[in-house]
């Protein structure tokens, strides 16, 4: 692992001090009475104004940033105001995270303006950093992707947003995101594969035998998929609405571990009858992963219920498509004497290999920020 860490370290050094003019990035979604989203402010700027690097050693750590969170929030509160005809909109912050843009680390603040009653127009006033850096700009990206951003400058500090022209939140967009996430979020795909491969077999006296008929296989698949779906829907809902939060690194590592375990169980069966229970337990984890994708897509401002519903439906549809694709083929092959060794054995071995690499990568955090 040493060379990996060394590489990570050299990345840190090479990227330190990247030079770019100072910008903050506001990704906002428009609701009926709300503006909500994420505000990314460069750590260098925050340090410059608030002295976040308390021990002045030139290295800004997560601990220092966390301790400065109240000061950062009150500075942010002074610097960004939204008001409607009914007066100021109430600003609240979610718990701070960090992210990275082309020039280094940023604090990422979930922000939410609540104007109380549905309004047509909101005036947004931006004052961050101008007295310190006259070239600073605030780049606002509204939810409709593709539209050019609104840019706050020293001489343009106020804009008016129309809350009624927002693109209607559809079920289709999050649905597509959900399908896409299953098909391109390879860890979920591999997990499903590892779960499904043994479904056309049954275990008897330490040997794999083909299932008697299609109903038996289908029953097994339905149990597994239902358990997995129920579990991940539960945690997806909880995490996406902010009730539960886990460190993404922990979640990502645990998801990789779940794929490792599923593959291992195919090779050295331990759980046989209660595989649906395992699917449920691991599904709880995957829900957190889904939630991260959903939140990252920046849909926080638009109608949350529809987005969640659409995304979850998309995930299930994507999953169903895989089952429909794999099950008939597996069922047709199940009687072949090669199925246990080649399809199940080799397939699980490949899954095991890939997921182990993920596990190591994620647990040791090769994607280093800054």
């Amino acid at each position, binding site marked *: 692992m040493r060379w990996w860490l060394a590489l990570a370290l050299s990345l840190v050094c090479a990227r330190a001090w990247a*030079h*770019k003019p*100072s910008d903050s990035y506001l990704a906002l979604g428009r609701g009926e009475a709300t503006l909500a989203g994420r505000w990314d402010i460069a750590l260098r700027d925050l340090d410059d104004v608030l002295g976040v690097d308390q021990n002045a050693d030139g290295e800004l*750590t997560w601990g220092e940033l966390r301790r400065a969170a109240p000061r950062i929030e009150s500075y942010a509160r002074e610097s960004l105001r939204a008001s409607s005809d009914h007066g100021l909109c109430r600003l609240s912050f979610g718990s701070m995270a960090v*992210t990275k843009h*082309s020039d280094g680390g940023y604090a990422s603040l979930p922000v939410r303006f609540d104007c109380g009653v549905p309004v047509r127009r909101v005036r947004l006033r931006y004052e961050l950093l101008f007295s310190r850096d006259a*070239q600073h*700009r605030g780049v606002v990206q509204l939810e409709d992707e593709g539209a050019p951003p609104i840019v706050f400058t020293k001489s343009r500090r106020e804009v008016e947003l129309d809350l009624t022209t927002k693109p209607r939140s559809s079920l289709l967009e999050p649905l597509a995101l959900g399908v896409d996430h299953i098909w391109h979020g390879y860890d979920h795909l591999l997990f499903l594969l590892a779960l499904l491969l043994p479904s056309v077999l049954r275990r008897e006296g330490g040997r794999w035998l083909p299932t008697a008929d299609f109903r038996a296989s289908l029953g097994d698949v339905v149990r597994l998929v239902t358990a997995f779906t129920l579990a991940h829907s539960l945690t997806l809902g909880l995490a996406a609405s902010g009730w539960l939060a886990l*460190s993404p690194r922990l979640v990502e590592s645990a998801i990789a571990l779940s794929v490792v375990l599923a593959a291992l169980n195919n090779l050295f069966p331990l759980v046989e009858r209660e595989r649906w229970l395992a699917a449920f337990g691991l599904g709880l984890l995957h829900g957190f992963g889904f939630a991260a994708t959903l939140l990252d897509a920046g849909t926080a401002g638009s109608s949350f219920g529809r987005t969640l519903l659409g995304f979850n439906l998309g995930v299930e549809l994507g999953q169903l498509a895989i089952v429909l694709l794999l099950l008939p083929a597996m069922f047709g092959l199940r009687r072949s004497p090669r199925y246990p060794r080649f399809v199940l054995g080799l397939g699980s071995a490949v899954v095991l290999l890939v997921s182990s690499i993920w596990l190591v990568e994620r647990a040791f955090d090769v994607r280093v920020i800054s």
Partner: protein
Amino acid sequence: MRARRVLAVVGALTALLGLTSLVTSPRPARAQPFVPSSDLQVLEHVPKRLPGAQREPSRDPLVAEQRARYALELYQRNADPRQLGRAEAELGAFWESSQAPVPIVVLRARLRATNHEFEAALGDLNAALAREPDDAQARFERATISTVLGRYDQARADCGRLAPLVSDLFGVGCRAAIRGLTGDARAAAADLAETLGRSPRRPAERGWAESLLGELWLRAGDTPRAEQSLKAALRSTPDDPYTLATLADLLLDAGRDAEVVSLLRRHESVDALLLRASIAEKRLALGKFQAHAVELGERFDAERLRGSEVHRREQARFELSVRGNAQRALELALANFAVQREPWDVRLVLEAALQSRQPRRADRACRFVAESGLEDPWVRRLVQKLAEAAH
């Protein structure tokens, strides 16, 4: 029956392999917010400083000027654009005022010129010189900006007025910079070298003059002497981004790509230098090229997002030499040429027009070369090639 099964097994295995090959393709890098797992994780490197260093801009013109000047010096040393914004902020209320003291107006002009607001900068300098005709700094700034814009008569007149006000080195250097662009580079270089050797100089002065000397030798086509002068300049002012860029260009033109990589190794935070390093890395097929190209692309994207057009010259070169998109490079180079007229501004138009096979679109640049007498050997060669291509 057997054959069908074998076929099915092969099919299933191919599907599996397909899946795993998908896995190895990298996921798109997105700025996902995350919560670090340890309080000790270092998120960013920031300047070390004394507590309480931060304060509001001063209302005292002397203090404001001093602080702004300091920020500008930091910018010139390490090319960090945040320092430009700092300098502007330090000038605070004086930024908009037409009654500001002359030194502040001149400083404001310098900041505006650095942001490529050349006309506004000239406006400031005209006003300053109307009030203080003998302000050497203002004369020098106006000569420099006029040179960049290709207005050599104005530049010559200002250098003439400047000479009696400053040391011999600045007087000669001011004129030499124009002579170097208008067909008299060799003699100008000889004059400047002679003046430089006449008496001992401070390192900053030396560095400036040697760097200029290097450029003059380049214009004159004397690469060995140019290299010698630029390296001497780097001994006086080791990390000067401008000199490093000029030397890197010389090495790139000579095909000495490996030397470019080692020259710029410690300077990749400066966009203009990272750009040159990437060109060398691409030619050498080095592994870090990909990451650097992506990083540059991200920085230019971020700049477009904020609505800034300051670095079109670098962007044009990026499209031309890193991404190999001559069409896009030509558009950027032409937009840049409408604002700036230094040899590289001209050269990029010519190269992009040649590579995108649209020699006609370089007509204005070619006319400028003919009228100004610009004698850069690369520019000359490209003009020749374009003339051949047009026939």
